[in-house]
């Protein structure tokens, strides 16, 4: 059951501490999961079981799909791995700008 998200929407993992925020999302229904379970708006009352291979998420990193059609910011790290429509999304390489303030 996919949902249409908008930039700024925060999704919490139901199996670990991971929380992500949508920065850029296509206007189409998306299935977002973490640790093998669907992510939800708002933290769950208690955590469920993680499944599949999980490498974890890192706070402050941006995650994007292979075509860079969407971007999420990890606002809280955890042990689960994020997948969209079943495909794992990866850390986007940071473009380093000089400090301007």
């Amino acid at each position, binding site marked *: 059951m996919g949902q249409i998200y908008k*930039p700024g929407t925060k999704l919490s993992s139901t199996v670990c501490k991971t929380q992500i925020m949508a920065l850029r999302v296509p206007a189409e229904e998306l299935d977002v999961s973490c640790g093998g379970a669907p992510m939800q708006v708002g933290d769950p009352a208690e955590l469920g079981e993680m499944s599949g291979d999980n490498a974890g998420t890192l706070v*402050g990193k941006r995650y994007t799909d292979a075509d860079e059609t969407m971007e999420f*910011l990890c606002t809280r790290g955890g042990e689960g791995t994020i997948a969209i429509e079943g495909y794992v999304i990866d850390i986007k390489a940071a473009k380093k*700008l*000089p*400090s*301007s*303030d």
Partner: protein
Amino acid sequence: MNIHLLLQMASEAMGHREAILCGDKRMSFEELGEAAKSVAAKVQPGEKVAYLAEGHPAFPAALFGAALAGTPFVSLNYRLSREQLDAQIARVTPAQFITDTDVTGEGMTVSLPETVMQGEPLLGEAPDEDGAVAVELFTSGTTGEPKSAVLRHSNLMAYIFGTVEFMSAEEDEAALLTVPPYHIAGIAAVLSSTYAGRRMVMLPSFTAEGWVALAQKENVTNAFLVPTMLQRIVDAADGSLDLPSLRNIAYGGGKMPRATIEAAMALLPHVNFTNAYGLTETSATICMLGPDAHREAFASDDPAIRRRLSSAGIPIPSIELQVRNEDGDVCGAEETGLVYVRGDQVSGEYKGLGSQLDSDGWFLTKDRGFVDVDGYLFIDGRADDVIVRGGENISPGEIEDVLRSHAAVKDVAAIAVADTEWGEAVGVAIVCPSSVDDAELCELVRANLRSSRVPSVIKRMDELPYNETGKLLRRVIRDSFAQ
């Protein structure tokens, strides 16, 4: 989105890091997070958070605290006259005022910077309301009545996400904050430093000696300066500056004289200089001239490369920029026109006036300038400052640059003066301690530019009027010519 997230992430992921040093007060990011919650708890429904004080730990606490409470943060200039201040207070109230000055008025609840950070915290998440306003800042009003620029959470977050990586600062990094809280660069510095995890060392009242001493004592690595501050540091250095920890200086907020940046680069060869060009209405920086471009220009004998030390640089990746002529067509390289920008961080909105963006999202900065063949932007000045002599547009900047090249000229401003024949003509206010006669100055302009650029009036001044963040007050000069 809500800018409070930046502090929340910092306090969760690096809460032990030192966030602030101000005088003898120190605070970690975790403690700053708690202070923001205490500020938020004091905000009554319908109140904004208004900050009217120098740099103090309560400034970042109030900026994030207002966001947590879901209300705009407004920063007022504590150097304004009482009359100007009263006018701005009336535009801000009802508000929770954080101030140590003795002002009272209708709709003001007053807290001291010291005490506002103490007491019961506000519990719960920051609200996430579409299009909510994070910051309202009065523009400097160098050309007229100050306007209240509206910056939404989404604008400021787009700026941070476009320019800063989370926790990218090393543990030993420290930024020296000298720009006042009512300046967009002061707001941007708090947001960037928090997200990067960089310690903020506050210097509430700037002197060159005080800045150097604090930079040495606290092993400061990063600093932002307006051009007048950098000039004072160069002047006070007297040929040598011992700042081995310093790595990065960013500057902006006004036109940097070429001589100042060249002197600073010669004094501090190990430091990376970045010119950050931006406006309040664009949530700070939109173009950057980075350290490599500085060094390349500084080392070059090619005038086209060398002059890039006066360039605002190239747009940051998240910003589009166009220079357009009076017909609205995009200018070619070297052709001067008006600077337009577009991007998520661009608000282009004023209170009571609404959005100034066009239907395609472009914002007219009202700065005039051009780009060179490689896309480097050169800012000429404000469009409002252009002198229109007999239908011909004359940029004050080109006249000023020529006159400044004279060894005896310390400072100069070209402005429009009323002229019965031409409508407007060129007036020049000049600071020139040794005696140089008018004819010599006029000849210098005639030889380098056209005769239409030659000043019709030259007025000697002891110094030119600047505001406290180094912006030349052309309006004051124009008024003095009119008298």
